[in-house]
């Protein structure tokens, strides 16, 4: 059975927990409350949500360290990823968009602060991310040209051909579910891995590997999330009713699991090409395992359910 987790995952848990602690602290410091207080409270509410898994920033740091970069080179960008990600999610939840009142078990930003403040909190978090990178990245650790590439990469990922496109296509409903999921969920992970690689000084060919790896892992997380949700709904006898597209919802659990296996293989194949970096690649492998099997609890990850036998048996 694949249910037993490889030994390396124990280290990984420490690796993640340590990083999450540091990132949470840095995020807390990055958004001090000032006048007008309400906007800072709204920004903090979403960015500092308790129990956040911080997958984008951890992936960014891990990718930076893979190439021998110092983690301090990656922290400001790691925090910025959380800020722009939070901004995207706040806007996606708005009544005119997905109209969600609950995210990760708590009321969404507009449910607490009002729609106007939620729009503005998002509008403020995007630039704060860029400002944070520029003002906090130690210049002795990261050459300016690399930093500019990081800024461009993040802007592209959240922009009109990235996550904004994904959200639009999801609302419109014409595009394929695979394409929508890549844009909505693959972009953030892709961007996180690529930014980490850029900060760590990766070669262009390695950046391309990280790009494909990140994209596959991001979608993998979502596909497995959807499978877990579909299963629990099935057990409770509920009908799949989520407005946004889910692969499991559209094609059924079995095909979703097959797709998950494909994504897993894709991600691992990219990492195999980075083996010259030795053990430092381990944390990146662990994302794939965690996405697939949820074999350990990270942060406030309450859905630590292992994808059951269907997943493990089909993985030959």
């Amino acid at each position, binding site marked *: 059975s694949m249910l037993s987790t490889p030994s390396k995952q124990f280290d990984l848990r420490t690796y993640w927990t340590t990083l999450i602690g540091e990132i949470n602290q840095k995020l807390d410091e990055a958004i001090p409350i000032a006048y007008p207080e*309400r906007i800072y409270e709204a920004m903090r509410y979403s960015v500092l949500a308790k129990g956040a898994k911080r997958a984008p920033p951890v992936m960014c740091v891990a990718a930076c360290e893979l190439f021998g970069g110092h983690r301090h080179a990656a922290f400001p960008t790691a925090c910025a990823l959380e800020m722009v990600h939070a901004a995207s999610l706040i806007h996606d939840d708005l009544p005119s968009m997905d109209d969600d009142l609950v995210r990760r078990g708590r009321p969404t930003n507009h449910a607490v602060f*009002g729609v106007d403040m939620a729009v503005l909190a998002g509008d403020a978090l995007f630039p704060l991310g860029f400002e944070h990178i520029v003002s906090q990245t130690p210049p002795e650790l990261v050459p300016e040209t690399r930093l500019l590439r990081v800024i461009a990469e993040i802007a592209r990922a959240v*922009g009109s051909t990235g996550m904004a496109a994904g959200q639009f296509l999801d609302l419109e409903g014409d595009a394929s579910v695979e394409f929508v999921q890549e844009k909505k969920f693959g972009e953030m992970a892709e961007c996180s891995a690529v930014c980490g690689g850029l900060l760590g000084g990766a070669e262009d060919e390695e950046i391309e590997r990280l790009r494909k790896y990140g994209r596959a892992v991001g979608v993998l997380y979502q596909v497995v999330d959807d499978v877990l949700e579909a299963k629990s709904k099935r057990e409770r006898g509920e009908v799949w009713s989520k407005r946004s597209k889910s692969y499991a919802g559209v094609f059924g659990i079995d095909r979703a699991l097959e797709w998950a296996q494909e994504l897993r293989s894709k991600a691992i194949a990219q990492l195999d090409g980075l083996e010259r970096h030795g053990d430092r690649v381990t944390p990146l492998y662990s994302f794939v395992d965690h996405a697939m099997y949820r074999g350990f609890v990270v942060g406030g990850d309450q859905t630590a359910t292992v994808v059951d036998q269907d997943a493990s048996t089909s993985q030959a």
Partner: protein
Amino acid sequence: ETEEEAQEATFNFKAYLLQKANSVNKALDKAVSLKDPIKIHEAMRYSLLAGGKRVRPILCIAACELVGGLESMAMPSACAVEMIHTMSLIHDDLPCMDNDDLRRGKPTNHKVFGEDVAILAGDALLAFAFEHIATATIGVPPSKIIRVVGELARVIGSEGLVAGQVVDIGSTGLSDVGLEELEFIHLHKTAALLEGSVVIGAIAGGGSDEQIEKLRKFARCIGLLFQVVDDILDVTKSSQELGKTAGKDLLADKTTYPKLMGLEKSREFAEELRKEALDQLSEFDPNKAAPLISLTNYIAFRQN
């Protein structure tokens, strides 16, 4: 004064504005092309290319040229400030904010494309502004481009533009808004982006720290000046002369400078701001400063 007037006589301000607005429009059209998904890019272009005086990008380019830079060095930054300005207008017009149906005589973005697309188009313009600066700026050292990014990010976020909008929303309908709060709103909602436009132009053009700070002060003055004059015009001009509903602020019970300090004192305040703005330009080459001097006088003496 006489020297300034002489300066303006030899400098064709109207032609300057037209020529600069024209290059900015061309650059914007090229920067935001129609691509997939078409509808988002249509929405972005709809508001971005809807006309407008291009005051912010022109300020950006003028500041760049004033410190000895070339127009091309500031153009991506100039386009970026217009993208941000457009984005803030799109979001400001939303039903959950000011709920406006018309902007510059055209239906607002959400009226044409829907609220969801309007929000996304705004977000995309914001993101693209930074991407454009980072990838399209040529002939400027990377360290300065980084500084431009930081400056722009600061003035449009919770310390700048957004702060102004938040306080504005909080004060709407209140009768006891004081002068300090009114100034906070305008300094952040209007002046911050004007300041950013001027400052990033000066950075991109290679200005010294001293020059950049002088121009920052200049921009703050004209930002406030712009608002004071706007308030005065709203009281003193007819709708026809303004091209928009006069007395709208009074009807909406908005706090204005004439309401708080009276018309005469508002006029004096405007004149003080104009002089202070021009003072900041006094040590620059008067020929090179001509566009900004003219812009200041234009803002101060405009009749609509």
